[in-house]
């Protein structure tokens, strides 16, 4: 990188990093130094710019959720004249956001527990026991990660319908669990393989059954893995859009994401845009807040699969 091609180090200054010059004994060192300083200024410029691009739309949404309908359209960038908290109240009650939240919590709560219990059971057996068909079942689970889900959803709609599970919360939970199993089994199988075998063998020698060994010895040992895969599944299921759009068409059973999309579509004639923005922000904030608090675990959980 040539020095002349790079803009003056203003961005670094604005990022609060003073560009200081230190005298160096050697010329070679000085050259390296200046290259480092320019690169540093350039890096900060780009990094600050992208941080701005990420945060700006989110702040804009929060700001818009406090404005009245007129000013949303006439001056999208102006600050609200006063904080219209009534938008939030309207979204919560009139726009059924409270119902969407409740449905989402029920569906995600049920499927998360189910996914972790069933996923760890299957993964434990596949990781620790030799039996004919072990590899076949393992690859059957893993294969589900690369198939386009939409292909299965066409017949699945009728399978679920025939079982009387269409538009029910428990039906949706079962489908969520089934589609979360491939990654969960993949991840936890690898995790159980890394755990030492000696503890389980000792428990077994002491007369504990396989089932008891699993629940009392192995599951507590697998806690870090369960947390990672749990966070991964929680976010995936909380943010799920495609499955409920196809399998959950009843207005009363809508989850957050599809509820908001329906709300946006119906605002065309209702015209309550400020209420819609309040709903959007309401759905956004808990997840963002939880992410900031559990930042390290969330990042570990979401990147764990890709690093394997």
């Amino acid at each position, binding site marked *: *990188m040539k020095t002349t091609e790079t803009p003056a180090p203003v961005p670094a200054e604005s990022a609060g990093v003073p560009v200081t010059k*230190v005298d160096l004994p050697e010329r070679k060192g000085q050259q390296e130094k200046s290259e*480092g300083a320019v690169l540093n200024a*350039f*890096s900060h410029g*780009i*990094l600050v710019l*992208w*941080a701005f691009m*990420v945060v700006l*739309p*989110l702040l*804009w949404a929060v700001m818009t959720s406090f404005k009245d309908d007129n000013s*949303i*359209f006439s*001056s*999208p*960038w102006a600050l609200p004249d006063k904080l219209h908290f009534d938008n939030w109240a309207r979204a919560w009650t009139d726009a059924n956001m409270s119902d969407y939240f409740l449905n989402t919590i029920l569906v995600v709560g049920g499927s998360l527990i189910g996914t972790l219990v069933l996923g760890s*059971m*299957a993964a434990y057996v*596949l990781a620790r*026991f030799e*039996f004919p068909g072990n590899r076949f*079942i393992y690859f*059957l689970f893993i294969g*589900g990660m*690369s*198939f*386009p*889900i*939409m*292909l*299965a*959803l*066409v017949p699945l*709609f009728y399978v679920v319908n025939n079982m009387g599970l269409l538009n029910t919360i428990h039906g949706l939970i079962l489908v969520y669990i*089934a*589609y979360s*199993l491939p990654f969960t089994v993949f991840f936890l199988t690898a995790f159980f393989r890394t755990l030492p075998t000696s503890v389980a063998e000792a428990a077994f020698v002491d007369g504990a*059954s*396989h*089932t008891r060994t*699993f629940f009392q010895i192995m599951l507590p040992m697998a806690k870090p893995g369960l947390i990672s895969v749990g966070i991964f599944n929680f976010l995936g299921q909380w*943010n799920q*859009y*495609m499955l409920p*759009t*196809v399998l959950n068409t009843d207005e009363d059973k809508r989850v957050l994401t599809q509820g*908001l999309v329906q709300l*946006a579509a119906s605002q065309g004639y209702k015209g309550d845009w400020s209420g819609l923005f309040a709903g*959007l922000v309401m759905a*956004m904030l808990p*997840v*963002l807040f939880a*992410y900031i608090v559990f930042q390290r675990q969330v*990042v570990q959980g*979401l*990147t764990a699969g*890709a*690093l394997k």
Partner: protein
Amino acid sequence: MQHGKYRFIVGFLAVPLGLYVLFVIWPFIQSIYYSFTDWTGLSPEFKMVGFDNYSRMLDDDVFWKSLWHSLLFALVLPLVTIGFALFLAFMINVGGRRRRGGPVVSGVRGSSFYKIVYFFPQVLSIAIVALLFAFAYNPDSGAINSAFKAIGLDSVQPLWLGDPDLALWCVMAVLVWSTVGFFVVLFSAGMASIPAELYEAALLDGANRVNTFFRLTLPLLWDTVQSGWVYMGILALGAESFAVVQIMTTGPGGPDYSTTVMVLYVYQKAFRDGQAAYATTIGVALLVVTLAFAAIVMRLGRRERLEF
């Protein structure tokens, strides 16, 4: 460990495997079967029609458009996202100023702050992000065009999602915005594990930092880049492109089918047009594209594994 082993294995595998086969594997097999029938999805009656659906698909202009757009999603989107993420991750990890007595390469100040902020969109539902940007793109009163007006660009007022030439790129930009942070964090973790001595040696040998990126960082990160590419490509062919195109573009599918993608076309044929059999045919094509994509990326990317 033999006592009651098989009873235990069956007991632990039965429920997860049963659920998975019933809701995931069985519908996939049914789909392939249905693609050779004239099933409408509305009535249970159908008859075999051989390859009729497939020959119809080859003559269907909308199918070819959707195939082309899906290919763009799978190729352009990861290229841009991963390229930009590598750039940002390199800036974060290697762009830092050299401190006296410190290591030769170091992260910029505030590197963890950048990683936290860039990750924000990753925890939000793609449905919420899509809704937010649909407003931002609104040509009359959206955030983007009014920002253009505010800085004096009154003449530049694109229709964005309403313009058949622009709509697809607008939709892709949203996915780039929401996924870049994930890869920045992923690649940062990889870069942090590259020993600093390697950089030190390269810099001593007269390499500049741009050289070290292409000769050192990228080869050592290649495995992560490759699996990231497959991961993103599969998402871009499936759930993510479905959500953004269905929520953001009119129709849905954009003006003059300019944004329609295979996964959306499957959904519309099955659940809007009552042509379930034809939908599964397009779904089978999507399956072929997905598997071919994964196989090609894995094959092209195969290199000698570098150990460090």
